[in-house]
């Protein structure tokens, strides 16, 4: 039983979902970890990326590459809309606006009125064909006990490939003078301003780039599932990504990847564990499916609190930095 549990957890930790969350966290890390922007609506970027791609392909019959471009552009537009009113204000205004925007978008896509475009509550299907047609793997079972089929293997490889590529991009950017300005904004934006840096512009660039990375995460997420519904884009997605980022270490290049693997390993392990306990009837009066979801989300909440209080720099975080408490 322990073995099944372990492989369940591992299967999830290296799978495409973990890769998509790693991408969300890479974007969030650019926002929060490097620039100090509080984006509580990363799920909104994920949503526009996923819907932008899926609508282009399944509703308008466009090719996959066009869908990807549309998704990316949608994320750019969303960043501009959100950033313009809030990036000159205190950090918490961006937090409130982004979380609200994520919910607005979800209401809008699930609204009956947008059925023709978004499929309302049913969402969209049949947009992943082009993507899987590119797969070089013949059908079969891969990765031994993890039992990945060919499609899952393909999307997993692409997902982690993108994580690697975009992490490298962030790494290259952060060691340039551009990255230095971003970090100075995180530390004290008035100081950056007093040295002649156009803080608004840098914040906007960071918001856009991180948002686009989040949108790409959304595309990988729905390509892996081969369908999308509005309920995949609940606000909690953002907070999972936050937990991942803080777990791995804010402001570190490898943090999001490490965080995603550890987070999904723990979460899936926990869920399978609870499920087997509940199914065995050891706890009377607690319903099965609900309990698994609820307890694991309580655990995520506690993780977020305890990490933020005890180790705001995360597992990979720099010890030296930890001493200089974030203010």
């Amino acid at each position, binding site marked *: 039983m322990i073995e099944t549990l372990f492989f369940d957890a591992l299967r999830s930790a290296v799978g495409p979902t973990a890769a998509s969350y790693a991408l969300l966290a890479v974007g969030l890390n650019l926002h929060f970890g490097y620039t100090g922007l509080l984006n509580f609506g990363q799920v909104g970027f994920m949503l526009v990326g996923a819907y932008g791609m899926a609508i282009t392909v399944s509703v308008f019959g466009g090719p996959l590459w066009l869908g990807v471009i549309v998704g990316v552009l949608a994320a750019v537009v969303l960043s501009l809309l959100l950033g313009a009113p809030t990036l000159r204000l205190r950090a918490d205004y961006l937090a409130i606006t982004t979380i609200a925007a994520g919910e607005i978008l979800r209401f809008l896509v699930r609204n009956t009125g947008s059925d023709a475009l978004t499929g309302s509550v049913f969402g969209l299907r049949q947009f992943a064909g082009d993507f899987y047609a590119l797969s070089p793997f013949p059908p079969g079972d891969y990765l031994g006990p993890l039992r990945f089929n060919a499609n899952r293997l393909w999307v997993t490889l692409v997902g982690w490939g993108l994580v690697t590529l975009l992490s490298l991009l962030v790494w290259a950017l952060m060691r340039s003078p551009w990255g230095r300005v971003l970090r100075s904004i995180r530390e004290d934006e008035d100081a950056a301003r*007093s040295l002649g840096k156009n803080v608004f512009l840098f914040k906007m660039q960071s918001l856009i780039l991180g948002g686009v990375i989040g949108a790409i995460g959304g595309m990988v997420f729905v390509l892996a599932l081969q369908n999308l519904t509005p309920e995949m884009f609940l606000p909690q997605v953002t907070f999972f990504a936050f937990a991942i980022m803080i777990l791995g270490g804010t402001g570190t290049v490898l943090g999001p990847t490490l965080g995603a693997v550890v987070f999904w390993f723990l979460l899936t392990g926990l869920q399978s564990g609870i499920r087997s306990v509940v199914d065995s009837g050891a706890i009377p009066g607690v319903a099965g499916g609900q309990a698994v979801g609820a307890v694991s989300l309580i655990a995520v909440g506690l993780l977020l609190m305890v990490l933020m209080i005890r180790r705001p720099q995360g597992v990979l975080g720099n010890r030296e930095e930890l001493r200089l408490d974030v203010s």
Partner: protein
Amino acid sequence: MSPDPALPTIPEGLRGVAHEPGVAKPDPILVVDGLRRSFGGVTAVDVEHLEIPRGLITGLIGPNGAGKTTLFNLLTGFDTPDEGDWTFDGTSAVGTSAYRVARAGMVRTFQLTKALSRMTVLENLMLGASGQHGERMRTALLPWRWRAQEQEVLERAEELLVRFRLDHMRDQYAGTLSGGQRKLLEMARALMVEPSLVMLDEPMAGVNPALTQSLLGHVKDLRDVEGRSVVFVEHDMDVVFDISDWVVCLAQGRVIAEGPPSAIGADPAVVDAYLGATHDHRALREERRRRREESGA
């Protein structure tokens, strides 16, 4: 050179300038006109006319709450006035955002130092340099386009670190510096911008006496060696009289006196402002508290 070693002589450019508020000077770098800013009915700054001389050190004094920092904030674009106009180097600077003010050559420091804690001392300095190609997002990914410039910036930063005796802290996080070292860091960082006017908000506050002398030396060097103009806010009168060429006294937002250090100490308006102010301040606080309790506002 100086007949009275205790007080510096009046520099050439200011000889013959009358010792009165709002007086015109031969070659001002900064000219302020009718500048007003109030917070909820309390006027913080109300400057009729003020000229800051070029190439000299101007001390800005005044009791607590006189509006010195607010004036700094307004002039450097960190706050917006209710009305007023000012020109920097002949160009109107009204409504200019803070970063443009800095790029135009007016760079400030802060009363509460803003060391970028989780960046090294060297990074703090290198950030200061203007016109870096690598700060553009597009070029940031092409290191060969900015590496040479980065090397120049690095050399300049290292020179300044040596000058400000911070070179031994080069790779430490700025958050580990002492209060005095932070003041030095902030001044050095401001110089990386190559400003023509340096605005120092209480550069000596909280600095231990041993360091004060070297800081004073640095401020004088700004004028004597580099030919920059300096405005600084300071509470310690000895310091003000020691290094200023000209002193402006602010009280309740207004310029109440101007003159060379030798004249300002004896100015009755200044003495009155300081003595009256401590008294006033306490009375004002009492009054505010009473009002607050009555109206709950």
